[in-house]
């Protein structure tokens, strides 16, 4: 299915958020994830389904003042 992550269109066959993060080599502990403008709690990563057309934002901390 086609989804959008951080503005980039991607194809994935992963079914839940935790699997998607694993595919992207992202450690869940250090990020926050928003799916269609809704923040997903870390406890729900294992069950939150990935749907066709999802708009996903994954953020982390970078240098800043």
């Amino acid at each position, binding site marked *: 299915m086609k989804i959008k992550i951080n503005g980039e269109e991607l194809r994935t066959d992963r079914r839940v958020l935790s699997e998607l993060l694993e595919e*992207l*080599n992202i450690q869940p502990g250090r990020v926050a994830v928003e799916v269609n403008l809704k923040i997903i709690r870390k406890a729900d990563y294992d069950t939150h389904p990935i749907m066709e057309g999802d708009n996903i*934002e*994954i*953020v982390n*901390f*970078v240098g*800043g*003042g």
Partner: protein
Amino acid sequence: MRAGGAMLEDNFIIRGIEFKSRFWIGTGKYKDFEETARVIEASGADVVTVAVRRVNIIDRNSPNLLDFIDPGKYKILPNTAGCYNVEDAVRYSRLAREAGVSDMIKLEVIGDEKTLFPDTIGLLKATEILAKEGFIVFPYTNDDPIMAKRLEDAGAAAVMPLGAPIGSGLGIRNPYNLKIILESAKVPVIVDAGVGIASDAAVAMELGCDAVLINTAVAGAKEPVLMAEAIKYAVWAGRLAYKAGRIPKKLYATASSPIEGML
């Protein structure tokens, strides 16, 4: 209070969190994460600010800032830099909290690209919303004593008035306003932005500010590690001087040596 060792025990508490250093440091604009880590170490800071941005999903092996700053050792204070309205600032704050270090947020609602001055109306609204959600809000504000009170009333844990525009290095442009904020605010006052060099930090601390947050003055110095160390001592010096109490300013001289015993 004694200089040296005792200075290290000059802790202060905000919302139950104990802060061990009055020099808070930003992590933007360093050459690399190794330099960032060396600078933080030299600064003696225990609060480091960070920004919230998209993960690089193209280069998936790019290093992560938190590999270089141990969240167990330092207090990570995320900011909402780059947010120009209440909605974005609240959104970034919630994401920052979910990313998982604490409820603290350095709240910025920027009003204008050229000055990066805060939009204090938006700032007040965002402070209200986030304080109700249990955030420990540190709003970056103008050197305006009335706004500082309003932010305090809205639930800010401290206020962070600017010394001068972000990254300008102009120092403390309005020490008199800061003094009024210090007299009227019940929450801690932390100068954020404007410091250009160590003596500016000392001025802020001599006025009685609880802490200073500095990024560009360190990151932009020729030798950032040295500047971090210099500012560490300036913050200590300013704090000690504040505690010691300055003499009144007078127009005319007062002799330091006795008249008695003169030939």
